[in-house]
């Protein structure tokens, strides 16, 4: 744990060195929203959206200018692992838009799928459309609303999705009401009988244990995809996880589609794990107890 913290500090230091303009970085657009400062810049043939806080930038979305179809981020690639659990989603909910990379890729792969996106920040929606090629349509709708409120209301009105992607966090700030047992239970009521949940979450602080215990309490066993210290994706399914053999078969079937995004099953499948590498006694996060940001800070 202590070792992990030191590494994290080193990484943070490295990141701050990288984000200071040592390489040629062109700022294209800046925008102050109600929630954050949004920065759009180009660097190394990539266009990125980042939220700046205290001179530090946290990249939210990057687009490869050479091939906009390619996924730049490891975490978005891992999110696509959800398709190994449900290869043919028809009704998709995404909480947190970012640059719109996930919905754009899903629309290309599944032109008939309906996608609802809950995004709290209207400025993010605007920037995604202007600079990242995201376009809402009758099939793809953005609801400018807090994810929790959307999920609660959708659940009450009987709306159901067969794939839900939670992507509302970044490395610096967590909306704490989106990381509680009660919220996950509300998400669960939105899933169809064979629905799949994919969540982009944390992997390197004390919070990892609390978060894992909370997801475990609501969804039971899940596939845990981790890449070093950086990213962790949780994949859960309402009617139980498919076996690794099934995962491999579906990976083969989806190989052509995922190759267009810049990766394949040979990279993604080995990340699938059900091993419990967290402290199972960690306190579960609830609406009554949710100090996620304090748990995530390095102390």
């Amino acid at each position, binding site marked *: 744990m202590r070792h992990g913290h030191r590494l994290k500090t080193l990484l943070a230091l490295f990141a701050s060195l990288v984000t200071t303009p040592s390489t040629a970085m062109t700022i294209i657009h800046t925008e102050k929203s109600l929630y954050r400062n949004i920065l759009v810049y180009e660097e190394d043939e990539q266009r990125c959206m980042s939220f700046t806080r205290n001179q530090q930038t946290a990249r939210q979305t990057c687009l490869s200018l050479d091939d906009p179809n390619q996924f730049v981020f490891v975490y978005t690639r891992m999110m696509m692992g959800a398709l190994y659990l449900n290869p043919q989603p028809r009704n998709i909910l995404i909480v947190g838009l970012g640059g719109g990379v996930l919905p754009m890729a899903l629309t290309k792969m599944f032109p008939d799928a309906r996608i609802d996106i809950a995004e709290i920040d209207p400025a993010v929606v605007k920037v995604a459309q202007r600079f990242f090629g995201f376009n809402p349509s009758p099939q793809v709708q953005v609801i400018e609303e807090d994810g*929790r409120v959307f999920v609660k209301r959708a659940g009450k009105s009987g709306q159901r999705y067969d794939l839900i992607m939670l992507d509302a966090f970044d490395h610096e700030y967590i909306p704490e*009401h989106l990381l509680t047992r009660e919220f996950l239970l509300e998400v669960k009521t939105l899933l169809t009988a064979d629905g799949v949940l994919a969540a982009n979450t944390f992997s390197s602080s004390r919070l990892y244990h609390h978060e894992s215990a909370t997801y475990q309490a609501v969804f039971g066993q899940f596939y845990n995809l981790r890449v070093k210290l950086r990213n962790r994706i949780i994949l859960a399914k309402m009617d139980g996880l498919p076996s690794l053999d099934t995962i491999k078969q579906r990976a083969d079937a989806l190989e052509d589609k995922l190759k267009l995004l810049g990766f394949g099953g040979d990279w993604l499948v080995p990340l699938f794990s059900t091993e419990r590498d967290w402290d199972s006694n960690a306190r579960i996060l609830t*609406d009554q107890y949710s100090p996620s940001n304090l748990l995530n800070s390095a102390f």
Partner: protein
Amino acid sequence: MRRFFIFLIAGWSGFFVMAIELLSGRILAPNFGNSIYVWGGVITVFMLALALGYLSGGQFSRYDPTLRRLALLLVFGAITTIPVMLFGDWILEWIFDLIQDPRYGSLLSATALFFIPTAIAGMVSPYAVRLLVSDSQLSGHFAGLLYFSSTFGSAAGTIATSFYLVLYFEINQILTGLIGISLILGLLAIFTETSTHAPRPPA
């Protein structure tokens, strides 16, 4: 001793209000989210309640002001916070179904849950000024000391709740603690007032 209790009650009342205000954001979030307007609704309601509390506290102080009555304000403030724990979820759920717009939903919810205890807490300061001031020459002096205690208490309540209490306790545990301390402090003040007054035989 009497003066000590007056300042203590004012300081604790400041602590209580800010701790509740911070928790109210938490309490509303599951139904109305964490958007800027939810905080806007919460702060509006707290400010309005305090404003009304100051007004009525000043009026109330005109009639036979005693430490006992000041302490009773603290006790009533605590008692009117109890429904937040008992019926909070039920009320929030009801308003969530009633009102689609989270702005007015959070405004109404904050009013329903927190207006009365906050207004009562607002009555404490002007009432305490009345108890302290016997000489108009010193009114500014005591008002200053009182603002100090009350606002210092608010600062302490803010940092204690947001930095530490939420890390160790559930919301309802914190509320229970706040209510308990208010009740104990109120009863202690009532007790000291009666014990200092009672043994005074007619000369």
